[in-house]
């Protein structure tokens, strides 16, 4: 099973405007300046790549932290 570290690493490298090394499982991603609808699409794609399954739009809406996302992995 992939770890949150793998998801965070892949997400940081996929988001151009997210400062590298800034994300932790506790990061409240919706409060970040880089979070928008395009970042949400990126998060879904990275989740699919890292965990080999899909995070639904409804599941993402219920998430507040990076750790919440990874808990679905």
């Amino acid at each position, binding site marked *: 099973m992939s770890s949150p570290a793998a998801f965070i690493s892949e997400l940081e490298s996929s988001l151009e405007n997210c400062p590298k090394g800034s994300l932790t499982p506790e990061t409240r991603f919706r409060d970040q300046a880089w979070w928008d*609808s*395009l970042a949400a*699409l990126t998060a879904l*794609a990275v989740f*699919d790549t890292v965990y080999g399954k*899909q995070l639904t*739009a409804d599941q993402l809406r219920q998430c507040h932290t990076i750790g919440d996302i990874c808990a679905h992995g």
Partner: protein
Amino acid sequence: MPKAVFKSVQLESVVGCAGPVVRRLDEDASALFADAPEQVARIRDFVGIQSRHIAPAGITALDLCEKAARVALGGQSPDAIVFVTQTPDHPQPCNANILHGRLGLGKDVACFDINQGCSGWVYGLWVACSLVEAGGCERVLLCAGDTISQIIHPKDRAVVPLFGDAGTATVLTRRTAPGNPLVFSLHSDGTGKDAICVPHGGARRPIGPDSSAESADAEGNVRNPCSLLMSGLEVFNFTLREEPGAIKSLLSSAGLAAADIDHLVFHQANKFILTNLAKRVGVPLDKVPMRTLAEFGNQSSASIPFAMAHELATSLAQGERTLLASGFGVGLSWASFVGKVGPIARCQTVPFA
């Protein structure tokens, strides 16, 4: 999952006609993203759209397709007109019949519309091939066009920068001798009907006093029940979930590998989706047209044939190419075909004016 193989059909023409008004992304963005100018570059890089060609009020998909059809037919009369659109001139009669009258054709022509969106050209091609192989037709005119920009709320930031308008005309004829097959697969998931939807304006919810009521979603996108609603996250997940497997299965059915493909023509949805799909299917990006998306926007049912006419015209006019085309979207619906195509006698775009 229907899979179909046609051996007696060839593409004679693929012609596209875009809406005559050009909207640059920075024009759209200055109105929509005044509070976040950095979004312009984000959209350009991520979505891959730099401009859109749209049809102003009064110009419809029928008008754009008529322009393309007159060139595509090359003076010949078809035995059938199949018109794929979700923005017809009227609920009744269908666009195909109106076009039949405009073209001044004889009465021995079958005419009907197909209500499908981004997968619609492939669906229409499947039906048109059936008409040639089993329906007694020698020549079929397949029109695919939409004016989605006209059903979008101007304050819906999620979709305004995306959609262009276009009409296309594809002419299929019967081969004199059976040739390499065109192999199709077609799919649906009606449980996803709400992911892309225009809620009012049909028999279920006729236009009424509440149809113009505006509301804003959590991201501040404003729309009313007569405008297009698209859930980008749902559509993205659907595409990644269904498309790669469907394409790999189709290739297997056709006895082909990803490396055999000369051109992989996706519905021109957005750069992020197409890049992800190409990677998962294992086809290099230089075989995946995306300039149509960049210059003209997402043209719904017209986007695949328009990309062929715009970006692949030289290649497809010169000789036989192994082409895989795949459309996906509203319905939910997705459909693909693969086979050798070309040389296409008339493969081009034409101006509206």
